[in-house]
């Protein structure tokens, strides 16, 4: 048995057989073709190209109506590349002249093309080598298939993939569209992070996935039995019977637990002693609204807008954004907190900054509100779109990564400017949209009272707050061990922000991972938090935790925890807090 670990998406457990999508050029066969077999080999190559063309056209015809408008144009590009003599005719010449097999002939041309693209200085144009690789990969898949190899291309797989686990190098947007409705159990990919296409697809389908498992393509073979445990980010290959039984039991437990939790859907999030707590959802895609409804969220505490800007060469227009925000506002009951662009750092986006090298924006660099203020042409259309959409629902604007009052003043001035513009143009908009700030930089947390005076609400982003407070580079594995939500400094900053909100009489919510972790619910209640925003999948769990907690006494217990001077005992104390029986 083999155990592999990567980044888990979602929480469930899946058990099934692997389907390895061969999208790459590993093990490209190389052999000579006899003179008499040449025409057959050329025919095999032409057939593969025809099959890929037919398949792409089929995908293009059957695009779901909610597919991004560019998808069809991208498929067009692949179709034209397929018809280009460099891809479809030159390999035929090579087969003919050098008596090489089709795969090898294609590979030699593809390698030359890809090398050429790698030398292009412009990063955006250089990235087009991926398109070449994808088109060539598809032809390779067809060629392998024609040789009686295992399924390699999605097009050749059956329509139902029940109890099967997709293993791939990476999933392209076209792949993810083809996978919808096929009922697979999980995804495992060697590339990709928490916001890759694979992760987005898995989240929207409610399936577990593990991404960033290097070399997984070479390690896992077709039909291998796999256990995927998203909570720990682990894939177990060919597990033995006892382990399998253990995970089947865990899977059942997870299902039973989920079923029990669904009973809580229409129950109120009220503590034992009668205090109502607001539970909100974090969303990014329109599909997420479904999850929010089925978990009974009171609204949206964080609507991430970056996804509108991804996988495209330029930012969406004001109107396109307006439509997207309206779509969400019309479908969600309760407030929808729209976070303005949080680009940069780990989210490198075509639509935002096509001409910057990826290394240029670190976690401490030009990102989020810094980027937006430096480029009003990026920021203003978003503000205009939100203010216009706010006519149709309960919208709030949330500004990420504020670190100085000057940034806040500049943002407020821009909002004022945009309002005046809309007024002049006689466009319908809502001038009274509440404006809040995300508190995730320690400087803003320490001075939260100053920010609170000028804002309508605060929201604590714990992921970045922890990273910045403890000076941890989250992309550096070797300092991961320092990442600690229970570090006293982190807890003190959270307390400071919540107090500042109370004193200014404005709501304070939390939208980081901590808000969705049931281990921290009581601690946060004790610190005075009353608004929690989390991934929709966590809502029922947190609701249960709220309903089993008693507020009275929590503040005092939590103060004791914060004053504790023995290192390492904080986790035990929080554990004790959670064990307290509140019946």
């Amino acid at each position, binding site marked *: 048995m083999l155990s592999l670990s990567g980044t888990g998406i979602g929480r469930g457990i899946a058990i099934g057989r692997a389907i390895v999508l061969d999208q790459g050029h590993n093990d490209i066969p190389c052999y000579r073709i006899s003179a008499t077999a040449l025409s057959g080999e050329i025919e095999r190559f032409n057939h593969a190209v025809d099959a890929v063309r037919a398949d792409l056209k089929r995908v293009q015809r059957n695009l779901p109506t909610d597919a991004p408008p560019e998808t069809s*144009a991208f498929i067009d*590009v692949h179709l*034209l*590349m397929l018809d280009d003599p*460099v891809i479809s005719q030159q390999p035929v010449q090579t087969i003919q002249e050098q008596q090489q097999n089709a795969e090898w002939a294609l590979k030699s041309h593809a390698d030359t093309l890809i090398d050429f693209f790698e030398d292009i200085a412009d990063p955006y*144009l250089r990235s087009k080598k991926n398109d070449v690789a994808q088109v060539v990969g598809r032809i390779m898949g067809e060629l392998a298939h024609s040789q009686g190899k295992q399924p390699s291309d999605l097009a050749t797989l059956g329509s139902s993939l029940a109890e099967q686990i997709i293993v791939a190098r990476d999933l392209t947007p076209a792949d993810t569209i083809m996978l919808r409705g096929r009922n697979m159990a999980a995804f495992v990919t060697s590339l990709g992070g928490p916001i890759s296409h694979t992760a987005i697809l898995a989240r929207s389908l409610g399936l577990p996935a593990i991404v960033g498992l290097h070399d997984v393509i070479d390690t896992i073979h077709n039909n291998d039995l796999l256990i995927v445990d998203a909570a720990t980010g682990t894939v177990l290959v060919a597990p033995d019977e006892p382990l399998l039984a253990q995970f089947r039991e865990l899977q059942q437990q997870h299902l039973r637990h989920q079923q029990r939790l669904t009973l809580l859907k229409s129950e109120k999030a009220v503590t034992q002693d009668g205090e109502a707590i607001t539970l909100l959802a974090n969303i990014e895609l329109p599909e997420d609204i479904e999850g929010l409804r089925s978990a009974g969220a009171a609204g949206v505490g964080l609507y991430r807008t970056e996804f509108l800007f991804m996988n495209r*060469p*330029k930012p969406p227009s004001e109107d396109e954004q307006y439509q997207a925000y309206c779509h969400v506002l019309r479908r969600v009951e309760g407030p929808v907190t729209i976070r303005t662009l949080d680009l940069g750092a780990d989210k490198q986006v075509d639509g935002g900054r096509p001409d910057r090298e990826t290394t240029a924006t670190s976690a401490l660099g030009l990102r989020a509100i810094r980027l937006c203020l430096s480029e009003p042409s990026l920021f203003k259309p978003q503000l205009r779109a939100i203010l216009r959409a706010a006519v149709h629902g309960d919208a709030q604007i949330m500004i990420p990564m504020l670190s100085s009052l000057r940034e806040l003043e500049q943002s407020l001035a821009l909002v004022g400017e945009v309002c005046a513009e809309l007024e002049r143009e006689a466009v319908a908009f809502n001038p009274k949209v509440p404006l809040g700030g995300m508190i995730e930089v320690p400087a803003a947390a320490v001075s939260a009272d100053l920010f609170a005076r000028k804002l309508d609400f605060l929201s604590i982003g714990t992921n970045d707050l922890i990273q910045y407070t403890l000076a941890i580079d989250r992309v550096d594995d070797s300092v991961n061990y320092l990442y600690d939500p229970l570090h006293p400094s982190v807890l003190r900053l959270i307390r400071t922000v919540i107090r500042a909100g109370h004193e200014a009489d404005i709501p304070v919510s939390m939208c980081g991972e901590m808000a969705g972790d049931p281990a921290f619910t009581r601690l946060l209640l004790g610190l005075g938090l009353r608004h929690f925003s989390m991934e929709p999948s966590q809502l029922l769990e947190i609701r249960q935790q709220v309903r089993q907690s008693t507020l009275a006494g929590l503040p005092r217990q939590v103060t004791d925890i914060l004053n504790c001077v023995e290192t390492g005992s904080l986790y035990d104390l929080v554990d004790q807090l959670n064990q307290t029986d509140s019946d």
Partner: protein
Amino acid sequence: MKLQRELQIVNRLGLHARACAKLVKTANQFESDIVLRQNEHQADAKSIMGLMMLAATQGTRLTLITSGADAEDAMTQVQHLINNRFEEDE
């Protein structure tokens, strides 16, 4: 007939994949040979790979050469598409 004209790539993203796709589709409507030349490099405007490999960014100067029966129309249409930023906003 053979025509030759100098022009400049004006859209912000340059000759990116979808712009190339539009160019190929336009070029394919004509019988004439249509070629874009940048210094010593030259690309057939009916080949998307060739165009992409020109790697022409915003500001790049190119020579457009059309030759054949409908060279004049081809010149007008291709030139219009490039000057019109491939119908992109910027």
